[in-house]
């Protein structure tokens, strides 16, 4: 009863595999520390956007404060590493767990709010989070905390973080891909399309949303932890700056909400563009530009860049979700 792979799926899978292989081999051939840094940033944002996308793009609950989970992961790692000498990888995992716990509490309260109000609540949550970590001395205040310096020699020191970030990004992307094809995934999409109807068809919408929120926070917390040890410091700006949320939103919208490939595209474009722009214009000018992009996309292109292709060709661009259903259920109808 195994379905014959439809062609597009096969192409995507092959492409993904080649890409992954390329990424695995990348540091062996390319030693330039700047480029490795850019790749690490890309992996970090892929993790953030893919995980943001689960409640955001699939369920339609757009969060403006996702950076909170990233930052909690960072500070958790920092404190566990410095105060209790917990092994690094365990701290990333614990950072994810702790973020997930915060998401459970906050999600339960805020996910009952309708879309835009939820977004504002997340904004408030991130603002307060940053404020707390800035103003209470156990977190080191504005200076933050220092993390142990990497024991690796300078020329190799980025490589473990490269692979660490790549692993987390891959794990996150794969998890989202899998979830999209489960009952949870389809329930989330139903919630996005018509939440009341979904509830009326038996979907426990609160449970669906909270689970999505928790999973999203977990991965973001993990990568936050890794990033903290990469930077070797945490402070309220490196962990909770609103710019992270801005970037996440921009990347998610650019790439297209509610797909698995969208975030990868959006992240790549924005990170590369940012790097290029940072050489030419000031950081504030760049943000003004991003602001205009957000406004234009919000008004004219809510589906992201992928929707342009949609409109031109009139083809439905979907993630690889349930495409095989036709073959599965009715091979005779082909």
């Amino acid at each position, binding site marked *: 009863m195994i379905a014959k792979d439809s062609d597009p799926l096969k192409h995507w899978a092959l492409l993904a595999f080649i890409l992954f292989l390329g990424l695995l081999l990348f540091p062996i051939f390319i030693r330039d520390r700047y480029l490795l840094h850019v790749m690490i940033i890309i992996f970090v944002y892929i993790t953030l956007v893919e995980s943001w996308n689960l409640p955001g793009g699939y369920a339609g609950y757009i969060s403006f404060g996702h950076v909170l989970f990233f930052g909690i992961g960072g500070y958790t790692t920092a404190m566990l590493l410095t105060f209790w000498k917990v092994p690094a990888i365990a701290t990333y995992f614990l950072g994810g767990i702790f973020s997930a716990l915060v998401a459970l509490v906050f999600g339960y309260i805020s996910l009952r709010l309708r879309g835009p109000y939820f977004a504002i609540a997340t904004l408030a949550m991130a603002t307060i989070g940053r404020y707390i970590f800035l103003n209470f001395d156990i977190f080191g205040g504005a200076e933050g905390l220092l993390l142990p310096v990497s024991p690796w020699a300078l020329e190799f020191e980025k490589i473990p973080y490269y692979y660490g970030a790549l692993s987390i990004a891959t794990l996150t992307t794969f998890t989202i891909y899998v979830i999209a094809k489960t009952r949870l995934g389809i329930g989330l999409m*139903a919630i996005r399309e018509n939440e009341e109807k979904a509830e009326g*068809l*038996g979907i426990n919408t609160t449970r669906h949303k909270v689970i999505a929120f928790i999973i999203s926070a977990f991965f973001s917390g993990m990568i936050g932890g890794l990033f903290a040890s990469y930077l070797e410091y945490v402070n309220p700006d490196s962990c909770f700056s609103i710019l992270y949320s801005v970037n996440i939103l921009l990347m998610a919208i650019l790439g297209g909400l509610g797909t698995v490939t969208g975030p990868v595209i959006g992240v790549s474009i924005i990170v590369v563009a940012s790097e290029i722009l940072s050489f030419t214009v000031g950081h504030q000018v760049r943000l003004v530009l991003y602001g205009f992009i957000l406004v234009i996309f919000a008004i004219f292109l809510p589906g992201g860049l992928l929707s342009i292709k949609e409109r031109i060709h009139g083809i439905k661009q979907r993630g690889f979700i349930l495409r095989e259903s036709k073959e599965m259920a009715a091979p005779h109808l082909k």
Partner: protein
Amino acid sequence: MSLEVKGVVKGFGGIRAVDSVSFQTTKGAITGLIGPNGSGKTTLFNLVTGFLPIDEGEIWHKGRRIDGLKPHQVVELGIIRTFQITRIFPKLTVLENMLVPTRDNSLWHLVSNPKKGGRPEKALRLLESIGLATYMDDPAASLSYGQSKLLELALSFMVEAEIVLLDEPSSGINPSLQASINQWIKEENSQGKEFFIIEHNMDVIMSLCHHIVVLHHGQKLAEGKPSVIQQNDQVLEAYLGD
């Protein structure tokens, strides 16, 4: 006796949309709910299915009190409804729409594959019987009004519910489609499914329903077999008077 509504009251800012209504539905029957516009029919549906909380009274189903439950919990117990204004999931495909309804929200079930357990086959069978099978990979938004009404009906059949509440299933569609829907309801009913239908179309009500409840200004005006209701002066007056 299946669904039992006891002295249910629901008010909005001083107006009693549902005013001490009591009745029972018979297991396996098709019960109609009629009344002039604004008599509280949809509100009653909302109360029974958990979309609105009741102010007073009780609602029972199979010996269990169900007022105060959340809508998805009501579905889990086997009671499902459609909406007066068709609600489907526009950007999901027709088939994906059919895979949404569920009676199980356990964690174990949530991580399972919606394509397993024979559900796509069942969905396809249902779609075929209403002639929507060819659209199964098209976004539901591309369906016509009549087609989406059929889809909504099909959605309510996906969960093996015991009671299906239909809110004006024939509104806005042509007579031949209406006839198809009526036929479908009769078939499902003959297999044991109970129906509770809000309708304005008297032909549909009289031909389909075994039992009718009449609401007027939020109160139960009359109740009984179609033939009896047809002769009821108060009912006639309520409709003519409005």
